[in-house]
């Protein structure tokens, strides 16, 4: 009786360990999923992963993503990459939902994410806090080449929806900024 009970518990633990993983482990795996257009930054550091949950019975992982810009064409790729990565790590089932429940703002970028943007020669957006985002504020950016502040907004629309184009009067180069929103 005692032996069979112990056996049963061991078997249950085994079954659970097969399917249930710590949330921190899932987040580590997701660190490997990068923005399809900015290969230096992970979706976690970009701030677009808003929620990760695992069903304790089935082991299915549900991930909630939110777009940086509503018309972002990279969302389908992000969704696919999250699914593939988690399935490759043995998660039995994955569901990725796109939601605006918690609208993305550029303040959701982590410090590591800002560093990753600089690595890609993109000026990170200033941290807004609770301040009202007025139109003048959109015109400020720090040059990612020389760190200069003597810069000017050339156009709020760049190569992708999330980028604006600025000019640096110090090093006389055009550069791109990840827009504050």
């Amino acid at each position, binding site marked *: 009786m005692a032996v069979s009970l112990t056996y049963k518990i061991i078997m249950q633990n085994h079954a659970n360990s097969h399917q249930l993983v710590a949330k921190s482990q899932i987040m580590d795996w997701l660190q490997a999923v990068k923005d399809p257009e900015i290969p230096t930054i992970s979706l976690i550091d970009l701030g677009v992963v808003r929620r990760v949950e695992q069903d304790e019975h089935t082991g299915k992982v549900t991930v909630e993503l939110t777009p940086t810009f*509503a*018309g972002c*064409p990279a969302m389908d790729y992000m969704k696919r990459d999250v699914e593939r990565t988690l399935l490759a790590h043995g998660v039995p089932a994955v569901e990725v939902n796109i939601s*605006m429940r918690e609208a*993305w703002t550029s303040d959701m970028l982590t410090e590591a994410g800002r560093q990753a943007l600089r690595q890609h020669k993109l000026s990170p957006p200033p941290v807004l806090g609770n301040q009202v985002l007025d*139109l003048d504020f959109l015109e400020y950016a720090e040059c990612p080449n020389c760190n200069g502040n003597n810069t000017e907004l050339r156009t709020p*629309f760049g190569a992708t929806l999330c980028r604006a184009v600025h000019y640096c009067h110090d090093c006389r180069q055009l550069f791109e900024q990840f827009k504050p929103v």
Partner: protein
Amino acid sequence: MDPKLDLLYRLADDQLILGHRNSEWNGLGPILEEDIAFSSMAQDKLGHSLALYTLLHELGEAEPDTVAFTRNAPQFHCCQLVELPIGEYDFSLTRHFLFDHAELLRFEALATSSYEPLAQVARKLRGELKYHALHANTWMKRLGTATEEAIERMQNALNFTLPYALGIFEKTEAEAEIISSGLFIGEDELRSRWLESITKVLSQTALEVPDILALTPVAGGRYGQHTEHLQPLLDEMAEVFRLDPTADW
């Protein structure tokens, strides 16, 4: 019509149709940056329409693609302003300025809508619309203070476009309920905020602002009455989709 559906269809259809018009500048913009600007704003607006059609779908309406690509002109609730052809750049810029100021203020107000799913979407879109307003202001101020020809063209464009812009604020039968249920502040309140906002920018130019409230609005769009320009736009926009509506892209 249910007030939520009534409001959402107007918002979504405006975005879709102006998004399509903006995309027509792709490859034709007067300078590269402007080509990219109108293409980017087109992409934003299509994204906004998708978010709004998705809300309609959650309320029981058909799939976003079905709603966008299978209706004909009389079933659209957009204002006539957004369906006019792109014309010359002076007109497209002026329409963009007048429309996007209204949109920015509209979505700022909707961010506190009693209908929480719409409020969530509005909180997202208003941040993006700030860039549209910023872009429009830059060009209104630049061209509205430039050469005699530029000022004259912008003035003519403004005079032509304003009556259509007033059509943005055309009310429907659901208006009273929309306001009383806290869905939205209402078109009259929006129009007065808009007037203040555009006047502030125009006063920094050499352009003369006519007595706007004395103009007769070009209305009808919210009730499915459209110019002869909308149906050809829809035919072109949906041409590929209608070849095979079941195709998996």
